[in-house]
């Protein structure tokens, strides 16, 4: 085979393959996007082409979503829980990771792995006793129930991630600062933390995306419509029995997904490096 022809074939194989994968990944989102702008009248006729518009696009679904439903509350609740969980995660995980990376010596590694392993204890195993704890504390239907329980899965992973970041930064930088008169803690706060901003931002993004993803605790602890977060809000409030608000449902799912997806994609490589490190 002539080399040019061979190259052409390899190129078209590459683009063809990628296109198929993209079609599989992105088609549901395309459908959500187009359905969000379709009138109920158009949607409820099975003869219409679901991939194109048969009638002029409409904003009616979005209007319902933002002024007729509790969707804005779902977004706000998710944001509030996300911010609170991110703050708790940083306050607890940053000192712990520093201690494991710098102070704890050889057993720091093992304790770090131990903490990481608790990430493998899933909410689906813990939710029943957790529901009892939440009800004993009188936190049912309160966002505080989520703020209290979500760090159980953000902390193990974020401590592990931060430990990796701190270990990758040369010790000598802090040691120099300590020779120059900083205390151990001062060197950490004034020298190492500013150098670790990319790592901290990764943790913020990751913790927030875990919060946006969580479903089972929210479903178990929150029944009050106005206190629901995005996942359970959209799936339980916009679907009532057999009545589906299809346009609003698709819009609600898509609009909340995109910001989370954009943020996550930007930091994915660092997060995956953290996952991969668990396998060396």
């Amino acid at each position: 085979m002539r080399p040019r022809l061979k190259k052409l074939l390899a190129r078209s194989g590459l683009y063809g393959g990628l296109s198929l994968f993209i079609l599989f990944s992105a088609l549901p989102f395309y459908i959500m996007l187009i359905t969000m702008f379709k009138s109920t009248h158009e949607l409820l006729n099975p003869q219409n082409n679901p991939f194109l518009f048969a009638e002029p696009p409409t904003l009616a679904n979005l209007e319902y979503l933002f002024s007729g439903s509790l969707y804005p509350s779902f977004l706000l609740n998710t944001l509030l829980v996300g911010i609170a969980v991110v703050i708790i995660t940083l306050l607890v995980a940053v000192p712990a990771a520093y201690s494991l990376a710098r102070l704890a010596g050889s057993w720091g590694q093992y304790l770090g792995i131990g903490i990481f392993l608790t990430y493998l204890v899933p909410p689906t195993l813990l939710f029943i006793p957790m529901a009892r704890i939440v009800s004993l504390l009188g936190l049912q239907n309160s966002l505080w129930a989520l703020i209290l329980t979500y760090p159980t899965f953000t902390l193990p992973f974020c401590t592990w991630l931060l430990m990796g970041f701190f270990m990758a930064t040369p010790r000598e930088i802090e040691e120099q600062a300590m020779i120059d008169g900083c205390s151990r803690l001062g060197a950490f706060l004034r020298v190492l933390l500013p150098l670790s901003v990319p790592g901290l931002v990764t943790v913020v993004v990751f913790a927030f995306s875990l919060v946006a993803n969580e479903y089972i605790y929210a479903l178990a602890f929150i029944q009050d419509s106005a206190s629901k977060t995005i996942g359970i809000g959209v799936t339980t409030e916009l679907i009532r029995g057999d009545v589906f608000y299809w346009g609003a449902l698709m819009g609600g799912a898509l609009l909340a997904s995109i910001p989370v997806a954009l943020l996550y994609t930007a930091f994915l490589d660092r997060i995956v490096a953290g996952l991969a490190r668990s396998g060396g």
Partner: protein
Amino acid sequence: MNARSLRDRDELLAPALLLPVILYILLLVGFPFLMSFVYSLSNVTVGNPDFRIVGLRNFLEIFQEQAFRTSLANTFIFTFVSIAVVVVFGHILAELLRREFRGKWLVRFLLLLPWTTPIALGTIGFLWFFDSLYSPLDWLLRQLGLLGGAGALLGPRSNLYWLGRPGLAMFAVITVHVWRLLPLAAIILLAGMNGIPKEIEENAKVDGAGYFRRLFEIVLPLLFPVIGVAVLFATFFTFTDMTVVWVLTKGGPPANATQVLASLAFLSGIEGGDLAKGAAQATFFFPVLAGLAALVLRLVRKAVVT
């Protein structure tokens, strides 16, 4: 002076900084973890404040139930099939992503969407895809003449009722799991491939080793630890998930055809208020998770040794 010395004495500072995370994990992971075993051996329900240990009664009871046996089997089927598909196609996707091409950022963004999107929201897109009347898939099949009308390959009715028939509903659940995990597996495998020095493969190529020989004798053995990581996390996320099933089928249809351990435990423990029974059903996660944890430890130890 005391504060000053704490700030400088590593042997005091180390545990002090670790204390909050250890307390959090002990109180809100360790304690409920133990309680879930205690509950599974007890008679506790939401309405019954009196608490007695009843031994293995809950386990004997759930084993009698068809719902539990189906759920256990489904959990394993969904996990194994999804993982097998995800690892094979994830490898192919990682190979493609290694090449140079234009618009890499956009391609990555689109490919990663299923993983980066909250899973409950992503599953909603599939709810429409598999709808009994308006399914875009059915529409496509009708246009192609495969569905609806006399003599059509998939039957004369105008819909397949994806979520209304056990086999198809299981297919739908697996599709969503594969859809979601494929990008994660591809990215983990890609990171592993980039870690293999190019020279090793190129030398083998010069020595005349073909693609499949290189794949099976060089690439896969070197990738093995990374494939382990991909399998580990994919297993973890599929095995313990209840969101996909809950949003898509609620465990039906009919009764429990797609039920999994997590959704069954939720039904009995939270919706039914039988905490003991729900806890007993959920304990069946434990052996598999312990196995995964052992795998992590082995991989880590190997990395430390080498």
